[in-house]
Structures are given as C-alpha cells and as structure tokens.
C-alpha cells in the first residue's frame, strides 16, 4: 500500500497491509507533528504532495527494499493538508520473518521518502509567520 491521503492516518492501516503468516516481525514508524522547530513554536503544518508521482516513488522505495533485503511487505501512507500538533503525518510499516531486516528496512524507507518522494511541508508558527520548510542538508545532496 502506497498512498497519499487527506484523511487521518490510522496505524492499523499500514500494519494490516503488511501482516502475513510468515512475518515474525512488523516494524512501524509514525511521523508526528511536533510543537516546535529548533525552539520556535509551531501552530500547525500544511502538507502538499504530487500524489501520482509520490505513490510511484513510494512503490520504487519498496522495490529497493526488495532488492536489498528480499522483503516484499512494505506500506507507506503520507497525509496532506492541514495537520495539527500531535497528528500523524506519515506511517510506514515493514514486515519480515525476523526483526533485524524489518528495523533496517523501515529506517531506510523513511530516509528515502525524505529524499525522493515529492511532498512539501509548510510551517505556520504561532507568531503568525509561515514558510515552506527547507530540506535537511543530509538529504539535500542526493537528487535521485
């Protein structure tokens, strides 16, 4: 399951999408809207996506995980629109026979999502100002 949605994200959605009888481990990650950015108080976030391409890139990340770890059960959902503090912006789940690969692949999936999936975040601060977020320099180098 690779999805851009404007609906609230339920953790169960990604878990159910990857669970399998031969899966001894399911690792999941939830990205949650934090109340500050480097100390500056955030009021809420706005996310925009290029949905068709975003879902295609998510599927490519799953293919990379297949190539690296041989795992086929990966799910990613990212929400768009206005998100309040504490709401879930992204959910990723990976199922695997054993936990080591599932932890690694879940971490990998989130890193790749931040590099290649066309989604943008706008911060609106409590002082009324707002700005499109600049990318983390760690991810900035890798264009593909």
């Amino acid at each position, binding site marked *: 399951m690779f999805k851009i949605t404007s609906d609230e994200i339920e953790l169960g959605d990604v878990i159910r999408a990857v669970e399998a009888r031969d899966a001894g481990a399911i690792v999941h990650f939830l990205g949650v809207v934090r109340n500050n950015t480097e100390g500056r108080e955030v009021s809420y976030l706005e*996310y925009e996506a*290029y949905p068709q*391409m975003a879902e295609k890139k998510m599927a490519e990340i799953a293919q990379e995980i297949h190539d690296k770890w041989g795992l086929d059960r990966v799910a990613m959902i990212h929400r768009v629109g206005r998100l309040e503090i504490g709401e879930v912006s992204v959910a990723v789940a990976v199922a695997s026979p054993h936990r080591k690969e599932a932890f690694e692949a879940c971490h990998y999936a989130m890193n790749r999502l931040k590099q290649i999936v066309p*989604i943008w975040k706008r911060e609106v601060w409590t002082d009324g100002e707002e700005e499109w977020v600049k990318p983390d320099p760690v991810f900035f180098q890798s264009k593909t």
Partner: protein
Amino acid sequence: MKVKVKYFAVLHEELDRDEEDMDLPEGTTVRTILDRLEAEWPEIAEYYDVMQMSVNWEYATPDSELSEGDEVALIPPVTGG
C-alpha cells in the same frame, strides 16, 4: 504539441497557479519550459540549483525531450516526513 506543466509548493505560490497547458514545438525539451517561465518570472533561476523536474512522474533533466501529452512538473526540494 500540448504539454501539461505542474507547479508545487513555493513555485506554485510564486507563479500563482498550480498547473497549465503549454503549446510547444515538436521535439522540444524541458529547458524550453524553463525559458518561458524565466521570461515571465526571472527569479525562478534562483531555484535552478535546488529544483528538480519530472516528466510523466519520473525525475528528468532540462535536456529531457518531450512528447505530446506529457506531464511535466517543477519540483522544489522535497520535505516530506
């Protein structure tokens, strides 16, 4: 030929539209689109170092050749998560 061009995030805001159809000569490249936009809004050049582009949902370059019906997008640095 007709090509659809989509703009996202900061570019969507600066250009004040999220997509448009462009009529382009056959065999043209993504660079032609950038040139047209630059004529309208020269500051777009400031984004060239960090901006990416896509053709039909795949990352592309200014030299990527276009065909009738293609969907091009200008993609500012992505910040999902």
